[in-house]
């Protein structure tokens, strides 16, 4: 369930922004202002049946009256977006506090944003902040051939340097051209389908961009199952088996040990486990390279062990 202080919200408005993309305006039941958030933050939302999805906050980040999120209906997903699309004005939602994992870098000379499809959502709050603080920003937005541009009017108003690109070839060409012609001190932000993120980051590295300048927001793709392994719980000496199709987090919970988690996709950082020994196979998008290298903490919702690992439980 949601760890830490929860945030009960009420659906204030529902609005279709593109086919299959629905925006929700949420407010506090008492009408109180909501906590401020860092641009690029996401809101954990309890979507029924134990599912918690994270949606980027698209509205104003400073002392907002309401939160806005946009949800792409994925019929082949885990059911969270179907739950969301069934919401009506006045419905109640259990949410967590906003979490920041994709913040703009304040010292950047220029912000180059690259979005694909619903990956546009975190950039709406980035662009609002850029405008407020007079930061220079440009946006390349890949939209499927023939599909309407979600949030088109807002984007036009917020970004003076916006290019909508139709189709993969056009996007690739625009990305290649942009990566070799940014002023010194530019930071790159990319959000969209996993394959697009990997492609852009690879091109950036080839164009000489240090990793410190490249920032990605991943929605978390479905990971392939891993090899089975075992975990020893140091404090009790118990041994638990983790089968190929279960996560370490599943196995720990199945052993009756409650453990905090939110996204269960290796993105949010909630489930972090310290004091791990053994060979860790990291599969998350949360830990830094240095933390990975240290080799004593992991995100059990996605990461695994090789053979036998020891947990501080």
């Amino acid at each position, binding site marked *: 369930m949601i760890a830490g202080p929860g945030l009960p919200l009420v659906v204030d408005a529902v609005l279709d922004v593109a086919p299959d993309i629905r925006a929700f305006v949420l407010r506090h039941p008492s009408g109180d202002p909501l906590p401020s958030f860092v641009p690029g933050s996401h809101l954990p939302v309890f979507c029924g049946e134990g599912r918690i999805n994270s949606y980027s906050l698209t509205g104003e980040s400073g002392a907002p009256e309401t939160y806005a999120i946009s949800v792409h209906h994925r019929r082949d997903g885990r059911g969270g977006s179907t739950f969301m699309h069934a919401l009506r004005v006045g419905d109640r939602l259990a949410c967590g506090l906003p979490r920041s994992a994709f913040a703009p870098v304040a010292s*950047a000379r220029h912000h180059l944003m690259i979005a694909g499809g619903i990956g546009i959502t975190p950039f709406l709050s980035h662009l609002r902040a850029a405008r407020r603080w007079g930061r220079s920003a440009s946006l390349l937005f890949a939209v499927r051939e023939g599909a309407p541009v979600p949030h088109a009017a807002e984007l036009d108003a917020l970004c003076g340097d916006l290019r909508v690109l139709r189709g993969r070839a056009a996007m690739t060409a625009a990305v290649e051209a942009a*990566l*070799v012609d940014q002023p*010194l*001190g*530019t930071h790159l932000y990319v959000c969209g389908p996993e394959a697009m993120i990997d492609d852009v980051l690879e091109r950036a590295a080839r*164009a*000489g961009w*240090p990793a*410190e300048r490249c920032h990605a927001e991943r929605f978390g793709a479905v990971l392939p199952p891993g090899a089975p392994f075992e975990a020893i719980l140091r404090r009790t000496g118990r041994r638990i088996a983790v089968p190929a199709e279960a996560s370490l987090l599943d196995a720990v919970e199945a052993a009756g040990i409650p453990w905090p988690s939110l996204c269960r996709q290796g993105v949010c950082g909630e489930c972090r486990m310290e004091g791990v020994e053994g060979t860790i196979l990291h599969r998350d998008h949360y830990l830094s390279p240095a933390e990975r290298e240290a080799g004593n903490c992991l995100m059990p919702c996605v990461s695994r062990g090789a053979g036998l690992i020891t947990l501080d439980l």
Partner: protein
Amino acid sequence: MPAENPRRIIDPMHETTASASRPRRHRRFVASARTSLPTWPDAPPPLDEAGRGFVLVGTGRGAAAVLDGWRARAGDRPVLAFRDENTEESGDRAAVWLEPALASARTGWRLMIAAPAADVLRLSALARRAGMIEAEIRAFAVQDGVSPLVCVHCRTDFEAEGEPGDEVDCPGCGLRLVVHQHLSRRLGRLAAFVADAEGGRP
């Protein structure tokens, strides 16, 4: 060329990656808890092969050979280069040249500097102000010996034979000074204090 990463110039304001290896300079001087001088690589670092283009700057004796080595490695990647080995004002001239060069450089480029220590600091400070980060700057300090100094008592700027820990005479106020490890980042000069400042005599 050593295969391992050369030690980078560390911004003293954000010093988080203290190098374990012993600094080559100012051995005779008792290190203060925090000095504003970075540690220098002992040999020129290799060209940063990850760069898509390069800004190369060389000042002072011995910089030319280092620059030639880097330029050769750059192959057909774009290079903007400045070098001035002999003149007194080569640091000033390099700084004047560097600003427009950085404006035409693009993200993905690297800055490589071979220069006396004070020039390295001054030029890399300029680059940071232009938006570059540590990962994009590599430098090599050439030509030990003459340091640009500022007398903290009379504010005279001067050049003198001496490194941190050495004693020099101030041409402005005549005091006997010790060259200190503190580098004025604004002036790009090492601070020099009266030699027995800690002995209690004014």
